[in-house]
């Protein structure tokens, strides 16, 4: 132990401190309960936000942490949605098992495609994920007998949650259900980020050339995280199908893949709460703007995106973190 000077913390204590829950996180999750009391008319929107946040969280694992760009992430969202919808149509509308089946299917397809994904980077990767997304969209479009094609899936019927809670018109059950699932998955993602594997993902993002030189099997890591992200995206899609009792081709669309990238970049990629904050801002703004002038929605979101990328390259959360750091160093 040559030099301990200037080192405030033992390494293990430092790592513990990194993973510790902060007060602001607790406050955030408590605040997610507010809509139940303050905005009971917005619970349907709130549940959609929770689902979108979950979808963005899954993208954050691959894009934000491992640096794997995907423009076709809706493939897994859509797979989850259609799976949950279709099994309910064929007579099994139990939500929790539906969620499980949907996530397994999305995960299986994610695992299979991860073998291709892990071999490529940069532009090639964008094209491949884009291509796979379009492929699946078109497949769902033409499999009219199974998916209902462009008409959407008809006859989705979801049973009561836990046999007790009906999916009501106001969205009480929908929001409670989505929020609980989001929170549980978030706990898993949070653990993952602070694990050795989470560190390896950041290593891949920071320098994929160095990884093999320290003995790291990057491709196998990428396959794992891609599969996990597919599972989570599948859960998010299944939640949407179950809480809205509809599935349309939109769940597999390029628009949904692109939106979730926008959401994550707005909020701050590579930050646990980036996708969550991004989803809140994006969905609330869309709800407000589309009430006024729906055609202009993409004009505003486009402007916002450009402004964020120019002025807050690490997203809104990154900007806030920098601000907080500056404030702390001044005091």
């Amino acid at each position, binding site marked *: *132990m*040559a*030099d*301990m*000077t*200037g*080192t405030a*913390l*033992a*390494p*293990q204590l*430092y*790592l*513990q401190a*990194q*993973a510790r829950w902060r007060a602001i996180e607790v406050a955030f999750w408590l605040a997610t309960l507010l809509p139940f009391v303050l905005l009971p008319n917005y619970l349907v929107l709130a549940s959609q936000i929770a689902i979108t946040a979950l979808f963005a969280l899954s993208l954050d694992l691959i894009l934000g942490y491992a640096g794997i760009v995907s423009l076709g992430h809706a493939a897994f969202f859509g797979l989850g949605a259609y799976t949950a919808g279709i099994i309910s149509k064929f007579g099994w509308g139990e939500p929790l098992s539906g969620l499980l089946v949907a996530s397994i299917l999305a995960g299986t397809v994610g695992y299979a495609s991860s073998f291709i994904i892990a071999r490529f980077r940069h532009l090639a990767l964008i094209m491949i994920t884009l291509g796979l997304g379009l492929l699946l969209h078109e497949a769902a479009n033409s499999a009219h007998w199974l998916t209902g094609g462009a008409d959407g899936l008809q006859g989705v019927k979801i049973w009561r949650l836990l046999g007790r809670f009906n999916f009501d018109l106001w969205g009480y059950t929908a929001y409670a259900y989505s929020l609980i699932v989001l929170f549980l998955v978030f706990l898993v993602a949070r*653990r*993952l980020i*602070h*694990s*050795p*594997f*989470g*560190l*390896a993902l*950041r*290593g891949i*993002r*920071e*320098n994929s*050339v*160095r*990884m*093999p*030189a*320290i*003995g*790291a*099997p*990057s491709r*196998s*890591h990428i396959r*794992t995280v891609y599969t*996990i992200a597919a599972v989570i995206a599948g859960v998010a899609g299944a939640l949407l199908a179950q809480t809205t009792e509809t599935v349309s081709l939109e769940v597999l669309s390029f628009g949904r893949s692109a939106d979730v990238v926008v959401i994550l970049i707005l909020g701050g990629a590579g930050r646990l709460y980036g996708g969550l904050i991004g989803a809140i801002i994006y969905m609330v703004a869309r709800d407000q703007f589309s009430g006024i002038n729906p055609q202009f929605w993409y004009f505003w979101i486009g402007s916002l995106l450009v402004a964020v990328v120019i002025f807050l390259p690490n997203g809104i959360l990154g900007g806030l973190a920098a601000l907080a750091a500056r404030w702390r160093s001044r005091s």
Partner: protein
Amino acid sequence: MSAPVLSTRGLDKSFGSLVVAKNIELALPKGVRYALIGPNGAGKTTLINMITGMVRPNAGQIFLGEDDITRLEPEARVKRGLVRTYQINTLFPDLNALESVALTICERRGVAATWWRGLAGYREEADEAFEILSSLSLGSVCYRRTRELAYGQQRLLEIALALATRPKVLLLDEPAAGVPKDESAELFRAIAGLSQDITVLFIEHDMNLVFRFASRIIVMVGGRILVAGTPEEIAADPRVREVYLGEAGHG
């Protein structure tokens, strides 16, 4: 002499019409400190790239001990103890020094794919990382992000990452490149002080350092090994003098 820990047989490589390796034959016995020298563009880095699996040779074989590793993936070679550092810093800019080294140790111990357990639970790994960093006087800056470290500290982190893999053979590509003279001697003292179980081949342009720290010197010119020998033999060799006197401007 004992059987070599690392050897190559007839390695060839060209980039288009540019021949960067021609019939390279190396043999490193256990525990030696060999230097690889040669003018810019001689093919030294490419040779390391081939040995570590980052560049595929056009012909020839590479052996680690008895085993032919010519077709092994780079990470598999690292797992077997064949490790390199980079001439140009190839680090993880946004990770701090402790995280970078801890990651390497987690990979070595096969726990880096564990996603359900917190990193803080890996105390041995964290302590070992800190110890390696301290031994290279990086202990006091180990929580600073790599991009914020001074250049010389980043060079040391290069070595720290390599050491964290517990190498048997260490290939150092100009470890002191860009480091001021007084610091580079210190850096080489650290290298010379490594365990005698580690076999070291280093590339270096500074002849003072080469003659001080190498027991044997391999001279490469234009993709070929011109000559190899003890420092005395190399110093006296007229061909080496010709190469180095004809080529001003490095060292």
